[in-house]
């Protein structure tokens, strides 16, 4: 049975009304003092010492470029920052490398930021290998004021990549839900929590946001029509459509890696079962056939397998099933309640929530071996999501009576907390790596 035309039309009329309230596009939203605090546990964590100085003329541009870069690298827990400001270097300087070798630096970053006649800014930098005495060459980024933070994050990504070999994620975005009383807001922010914008604010709950693989759209579950429906919203234009609004409940959207389909949980045929549907709302396909609850689908990176939660064994555990349908296979065997699977983009790990002593704790499973490690010692963990470089997990937890967002390294040793004073924050999802726009 397809959605009845009158019901779908009703859903679209509701969205029209809400779009009026939402303004239809992004607008700046005042996030009070969003900041990360880093906690690094364990002795002997090796950190790369890097000397970074204030960029020449940085005071003349609207954003503190070198401070953003320092904060990014510090937050990763992998770098020890030395201050090179006293040397007054810029991107074309030849730095006193033997001095810095003596001070224990492995690398040195110097740069400049110049306002241009047309109102844009030329941000330049050079990264030096202190031990080899070699410079990377000068890189220049010409950006408008609105993109200065992003430029700083891209520089931090470049440094991270050159020095660790892994892709940086400082220039990525996150989305999450913020709740203040009856008001629910879907928030999009930079990975450092700054630059928060609110594509959607409604007086009904929003749950389960999910980034499309190209980073342009967010799917989520909205209760604005008095029941849960799956909505897809274009982040930059604000355009929304109901992708799944069938009879009963519609929830748990998960984008296929090619961005063409969503796995969803529907009760249209009774119970909660997994289906696939086109991102345009067409082409419904049922995946699971059981009398139990099957929900929370998560795709393998090759798009062939769905991980999902089922209580067919009595209590919720995580299973896999071919995306084209077939026999499910159980994956979790430790603990009596396992939910919320998230698969790393490199396909090697599954993060999930396991009930431990009446609390709910983030765990990591190495998929090749089945080995399981707890990543936290908190009791109210929810909704894990991997960074696009597969090295970090963002999740929600509770601290001092408030819902907060945390990131953790895969060994659990480097944790950073995003604390906002305004509202309870939950359901974080890490956006994909996107290429910088060509200008």
């Amino acid at each position, binding site marked *: 049975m397809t959605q009845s035309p009158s019901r779908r039309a009703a859903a679209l009329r509701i969205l029209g009304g809400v779009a009026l309230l939402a303004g239809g596009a992004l607008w700046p939203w005042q996030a009070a003092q969003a900041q990360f605090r880093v906690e690094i546990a364990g002795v002997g964590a090796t950190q790369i010492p890097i000397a970074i100085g204030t960029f020449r003329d940085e005071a003349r541009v609207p954003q503190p470029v070198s401070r953003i870069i320092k904060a990014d690298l510090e937050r990763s827990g992998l770098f020890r920052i030395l201050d090179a400001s006293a040397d007054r270097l810029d991107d074309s300087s030849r730095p006193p490398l033997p001095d810095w070798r003596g001070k224990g630096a492995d690398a040195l970053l110097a740069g400049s930021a110049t306002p241009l006649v047309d109102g844009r800014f030329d941000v330049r930098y050079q990264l030096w290998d202190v031990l080899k005495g070699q410079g990377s060459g000068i890189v220049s980024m010409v950006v408008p004021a609105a993109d200065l933070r992003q430029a700083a994050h891209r520089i931090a990504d470049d440094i991270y990549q050159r020095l660790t070999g892994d892709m940086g994620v400082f220039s990525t975005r996150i989305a999450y839900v913020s709740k203040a009383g009856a008001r629910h807001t879907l928030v999009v922010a930079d990975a450092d929590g700054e630059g928060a914008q609110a594509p959607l604010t409604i007086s009904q709950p929003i749950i389960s946001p999910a980034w499309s693989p190209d980073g342009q759209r967010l799917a989520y579950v909205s209760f604005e029509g008095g029941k849960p429906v799956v909505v897809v919203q274009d982040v930059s234009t604000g355009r929304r459509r109901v992708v799944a609004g069938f009879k009963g409940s519609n929830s748990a959207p998960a984008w296929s890696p090619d961005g063409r389909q969503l796995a969803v949980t529907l009760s249209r045929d009774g119970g909660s079962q997994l289906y696939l549907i086109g991102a345009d709302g067409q082409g419904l396909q049922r995946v699971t056939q059981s009398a139990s609850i099957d929900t929370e689908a998560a795709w393998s990176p090759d798009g062939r397998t769905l991980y999902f939660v089922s209580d067919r064994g009595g209590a919720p555990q995580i299973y896999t099933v071919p995306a084209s349908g077939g026999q499910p296979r159980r994956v979790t065997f430790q603990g009596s309640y396992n*939910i919320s699977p998230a698969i790393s983009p490199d396909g090697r790990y599954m993060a999930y929530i396991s009930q431990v002593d009446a609390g709910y704790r983030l765990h990591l499973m190495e998929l090749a071996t089945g080995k399981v490690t707890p990543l936290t010692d908190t009791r109210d963990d929810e909704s894990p999501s991997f960074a696009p470089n597969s090295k970090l997990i963002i999740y929600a937890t509770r601290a001092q009576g408030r819902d907060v967002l945390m990131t953790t390294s895969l060994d659990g040793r480097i944790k950073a907390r995003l604390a906002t004073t305004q509202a309870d924050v939950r359901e974080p999802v890490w956006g994909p790596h996107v290429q910088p726009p060509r200008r």
Partner: protein
Amino acid sequence: MNFSRTLFVSAVSAAVLTLAGCGSSVKLDDQAGSGAAPITSATPGADANAASSSNVASVVVPDQNAAADASGLTRVIYFDFDSFVVKSEFAGAIDGHAKRLNAAKAKKVIIEGHTDERGGREYNLALGQKRAEAVQKSLTLLGVSGEQIEAVSFGEERAAAQGSGEAVWAQNRRAEIKDR
């Protein structure tokens, strides 16, 4: 699509749908939505909202009459922990609703299932759905047509009572029958 008229209609429909969702039972989230005191946090008495914490507690006290409409029909059905069985104490209410719906085949209801706050959001959405469908089944077994009923879930997202502990959780494990 004719946007300006449609948007006006939709703003009105959105308002109408919000109000239609009230039903006749006194619900804290409806009060919060109309601009009254914000929902307090889960640490009662810990802050300056201590006075509104105790207001919340008094509304929590179970009172089936508050959950009934003008016809005296109970509209909220409560469930035991980890249970999706409609208890015998609600058989009379189910019977009353079935009679009412069988007498008027054009009448429709929506059944909203809810859970307490413990556990994951999406799994709780599915558990709430089980509760709504249990009530739906009780009605269809008494002859009500499936076309007259839609079973949906709010999971843990629309708590009737805020806070933690069994007294609060028991208030939230429920299904609500609302006229459309």
